[in-house]
């Protein structure tokens, strides 16, 4: 088949998302909108203690409560579901005991599900749980990061010699030599508090076991339907083809909805046990207590430079509070391991030492939240860069420019083992200088300071490793797919129906896929419908994670589209008696070399469906294709960019206000700038939340003190600055579309940009901050007030 030069018409255009019209009109169908006949509602009694033994359980009164069908403890469920244990060849020796859907005689974190009640209504189920009687014996808890790792700390689980979940040391080059011979060594310690994703729609599902057909259907607010299909089959002892996972409209994922949660598995097990549909919707209290948490890192890092201001290397000592278990299936070390190895990623350096220790704690599990690990590495790196520039008395942008990894396709392997290619730091920084009108911003800061206001400007460069390849989880023995599949057919109307293994979770990936299909085949984008999320309807693939929708999902769609285009033209040529090479498909019409319309796609579809005898003898038109795509080289696609923040610090109250934010992103070819820009803005807002507001605080006894949105502060629209965005495009050379990931880049650099801006404002007052979130009391303390 010849491959004519692709013409991009829809690809690259800022087309509004077709799917949002339905959502805006209130026609969205989220999992809580689904009600099945005979459906029960699950509510959980969760451990009030961080660590406690269950001495005795008396469920008699709870089970007698009106409107309640059942109240179960772990013993009641173990006949239908088995526990699971997080293991990964990527993290050899990882300590994470088996987890069960309900606590087995002991709870290891506050919020751990202990009992489940199934009621005619959620309220009835909650009423019943108030009647459950549990005798608890509180056990000593290991809570704080340093205290959990201290020699005499209470064991998070019985029998453990210490609370180290996993540790590693990694070396690149000759760090000792580099630091000994350095002209300048700068050092910082940075802390990032626990936080979580706070998707607008919480976790939830409706599980429906059909004992007659022996089929389990789970309507699931999730990022990875195929992954859950495999896990559910495994835990419930079913063949995976007997498990159907259907993802309806999803109100945000951010990494929260890609794991296995005990409460969800318990609810599904109840549906199987009772042979009645069961709904479980986490409320906000449950979300904050039991969604995966992220962060809780304490990093001590040093950077060595030579006399010319070239970065020689990094020495990083990294501690991470992992929680009571390692999240299944990926493992909690993913975040800190990524953070460790991403230190210094925008810059050339040859020498690296990294030490990582992950603590078990009697707290909720930590997992992979948007931009996994990157924000930590960017905070550490960009803080060190600022310190070095200050120590050298030079403009921090000059120091950055001197050290940027080179552009171009030739990979650069840095001391920490990162393979970087196709990056464009200098071009992005120049674009930022234009976008922000840097001289004007500097004037504004100067003028405000002269008037007594504490303005600050901060910059953060970043690399975002996107679109993870199969070797990462495949070689770790973790069944997370890095491939995507697409089935694509011509419908009788001439429209195209695309079933894709990417998951639409509100990020708009279906729009990007539609644009790729439209151009790949040669139809108007309005003629493409994209369907996702149902394992019974869409082919197998990875779903939504690692900013992979454009780079892998849309690439799969493009390749499917090119094949379908070939099939269409082959069929048309047979029908028209024309040379296949001479035909083109344009805006849904088959045209000859002069551009004359020869055949409508809808007519071709009709002939294939109803009058197939019009084709030459023996020819069978193939107006459907299935295409599977896995990138066969480059484990990650490095996207890169730079962000800048302008902030004002109130020196009397300690409050910080974000005044303006700028972002330049190079995510390869931009399939739809609107999608990329809104992904960036959303990520930046979450990054500002991380920098200024969000903190999951536990008391010393392991009690979560920020259990509602009154205490856990999320960024709100009123406080958010205008966010200006510009693009630099360095298409990935190893794919047809050339797209890299864009979904997480906003979150990667915003915290560091804000921290650097605040420290710029405080520098004139001799103060500096190194912990996120930046609280007003921390600001005043730094100022000595």
């Amino acid at each position, binding site marked *: 088949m010849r491959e004519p030069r692709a013409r991009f018409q829809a690809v690259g255009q800022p087309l509004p998302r077709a799917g949002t019209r339905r959502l805006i009109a209130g026609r969205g169908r989220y999992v809580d909108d689904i009600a099945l006949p005979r459906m029960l509602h699950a509510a959980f009694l969760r451990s009030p203690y961080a660590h406690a033994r269950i001495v005795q359980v008396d469920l008699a009164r709870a089970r007698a409560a009106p409107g309640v069908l059942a109240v179960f403890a772990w013993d009641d469920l173990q006949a239908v579901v088995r526990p699971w244990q997080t293991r990964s060849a990527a993290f050899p020796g990882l300590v994470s005991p088996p987890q069960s859907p309900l606590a087995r005689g002991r709870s290891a974190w506050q919020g751990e599900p202990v009992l489940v009640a199934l009621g005619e209504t959620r309220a009835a189920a909650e009423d019943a749980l108030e009647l459950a009687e549990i005798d608890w014996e509180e056990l000593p808890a290991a809570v704080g990061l340093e205290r959990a790792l201290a020699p005499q700390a209470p064991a998070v689980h019985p029998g453990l010699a210490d609370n180290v979940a996993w540790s590693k040391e990694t070396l690149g080059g000759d760090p000792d030599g580099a630091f000994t011979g350095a002209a300048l060594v700068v050092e910082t310690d940075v802390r990032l508090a626990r936080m979580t994703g706070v998707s607008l729609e919480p976790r939830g599902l409706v599980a429906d076991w059909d004992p007659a057909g022996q089929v389990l259907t789970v309507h699931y607010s999730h990022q990875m339907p195929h992954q859950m299909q495999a896990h559910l089959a495994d835990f419930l002892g079913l063949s995976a083809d007997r498990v159907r996972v259907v993802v309806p409209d999803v109100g945000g994922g951010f990494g929260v909805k890609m794991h296995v949660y005990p409460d969800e598995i318990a609810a599904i097990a109840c549906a199987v046990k009772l042979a009645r549909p069961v709904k479980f919707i986490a409320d906000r209290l449950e979300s904050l207590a039991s969604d995966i948490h992220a962060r809780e890192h304490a990093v001590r890092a040093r950077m060595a430079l030579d006399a010319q201001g070239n970065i020689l290397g990094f020495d990083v000592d990294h501690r991470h509070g992992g929680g009571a278990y390692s999240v299944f299936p990926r493992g909690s070390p993913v975040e800190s391991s990524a953070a460790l190895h991403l230190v210094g990623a925008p810059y050339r350096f040859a020498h690296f030492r990294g030490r990582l220790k992950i603590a078990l704690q009697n707290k909720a599990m930590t997992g992979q939240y948007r931009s996994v690990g990157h924000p930590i590495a960017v905070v550490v790196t960009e803080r060190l860069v600022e310190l070095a520039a200050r120590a050298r008395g030079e403009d921090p942008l000059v120091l950055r420019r001197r050290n940027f990894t080179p552009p171009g396709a030739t990979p650069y392997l840095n001391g920490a083992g990162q393979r970087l290619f196709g990056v464009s730091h200098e071009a992005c920084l120049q674009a930022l200088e234009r976008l922000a009108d840097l001289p004007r911003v500097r004037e504004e800061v100067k003028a405000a300071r002269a008037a007594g206001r504490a303005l600050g400007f901060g910059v953060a460069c970043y690399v975002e490793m996107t679109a993870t390849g199969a070797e990462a989880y495949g070689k770790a023995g973790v069944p997370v797919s890095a491939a995507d599949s697409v089935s694509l057919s011509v419908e009788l109307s001439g429209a195209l129906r695309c079933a894709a293994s990417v998951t639409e979770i509100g990020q708009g990936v279906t729009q990007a896929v539609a644009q790729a299909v439209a151009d790949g085949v040669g139809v108007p984008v309005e003629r493409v419908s994209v369907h996702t999320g149902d394992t019974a309807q869409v082919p197998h693939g990875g779903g939504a994670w690692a900013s992979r929708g454009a780079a892998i999902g849309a690439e799969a769609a493009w390749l499917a589209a090119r094949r379908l285009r070939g099939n269409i033209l082959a069929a048309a040529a047979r029908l028209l008696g024309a040379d296949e090479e001479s035909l083109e498909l344009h805006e849904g019409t088959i045209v000859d070399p002069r551009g004359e319309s020869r055949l409508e796609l809808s007519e071709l579809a009709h002939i294939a469906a109803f009058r197939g005898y019009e084709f030459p003898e023996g020819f069978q038109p193939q107006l459907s294709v299935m295409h599977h795509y896995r990138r066969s080289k480059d484990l990650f696609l490095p996207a890169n960019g730079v962000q800048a923040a302008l902030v004002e610090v109130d020196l009397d109250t300690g409050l910080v206000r974000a005044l303006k934010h700028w972002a330049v992103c190079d995510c390869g070819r931009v399939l739809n700038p609107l999608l990329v820009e809104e992904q960036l803005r959303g990520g930046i807002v979450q990054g500002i939340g991380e920098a200024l507001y969000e903190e999951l605080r536990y008391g010393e006894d392991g009690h979560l003190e920020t259990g509602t949105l009154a205490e856990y502060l999320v960024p709100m629209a009123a406080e958010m600055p205008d966010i200006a965005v510009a693009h630099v495009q360095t298409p990935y050379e190893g794919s047809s579309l050339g797209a890299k990931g864009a979904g997480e880049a906003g979150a990667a650099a915003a915290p560091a940009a804000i921290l650097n801006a605040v420290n710029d404002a405080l520098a004139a007052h001799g103060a500096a901050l190194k912990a996120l979130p930046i609280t*007003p009391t921390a600001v005043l303390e730094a100022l000595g007030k």
Partner: protein
Amino acid sequence: MKAPAFRYARPESLDEAIALLVQHGTDARVLAGGQSLMPMLNLRLLQPSVLIDINRIPGLGEITPHAQGIEIGAMARHAAVLYSREVAQAAPLLALALPHVAHLAVRNRGTHGGSCALADPSAEIPACALALDATFVLRAAGGERRVPAREFFRGLYETALGPDELLVRVDYPRAQAGWRYGFDEVARRHGDFAIAGLAAAARLEGSVLREARLAFFGIADRPILLRAASREEARARIEEVEVAGTSVYPAAYRRRLMGVLLERVLRTIAK
């Protein structure tokens, strides 16, 4: 979480509401705008057996100006008070404070009386009532009694309201010539409960403070009124207040904010 089951009563008159209060006493909760009560029910922090919905009682939401002041009915929504020209004239402090009360959606439902009867120590309106020396009108089966603001707020979510009494309105004296008003609060995000706030009424001669009623909120178990005849006295009074702190916002920080707010509000007033 979902609220536990409760019985629901929707009286059509004040007498009927009060009869229900008499009948159920402390087992009952009065539902006005529901902006705090409903979350508390859903969090199962409160488990009343009866909810008495006073939304349908005629006349309870009226705002009535008169020569001496203005009466604000208990069911007057924050938005109605905020956008009332009569309130802005008679009690300008309320107009300054109300934009700080939560967000638009909450202000559309939340009520003046509800905010006072709940007595959240971080709430804006109780502090305004205190600064303006408002009077709370409480209705019981035997008739009405009038309680001055300084006696109404008794502690954390504690007021002078008896279990068989209903707050029917708040009477504000008309702003006097020579007095000016200022309001400010410190919060991490707009619409949050304040870490500390100040509702102030002050009489100035030129730019010199002669008399001030300073109601600080968010700093103790109830709004605290400081009276001062000079800026210096006000500063000294702040040092005497017993300020409550938390691990996130310690007492020393809140006391500091009281000083910052005093300076900022007085500066605005003097403009």
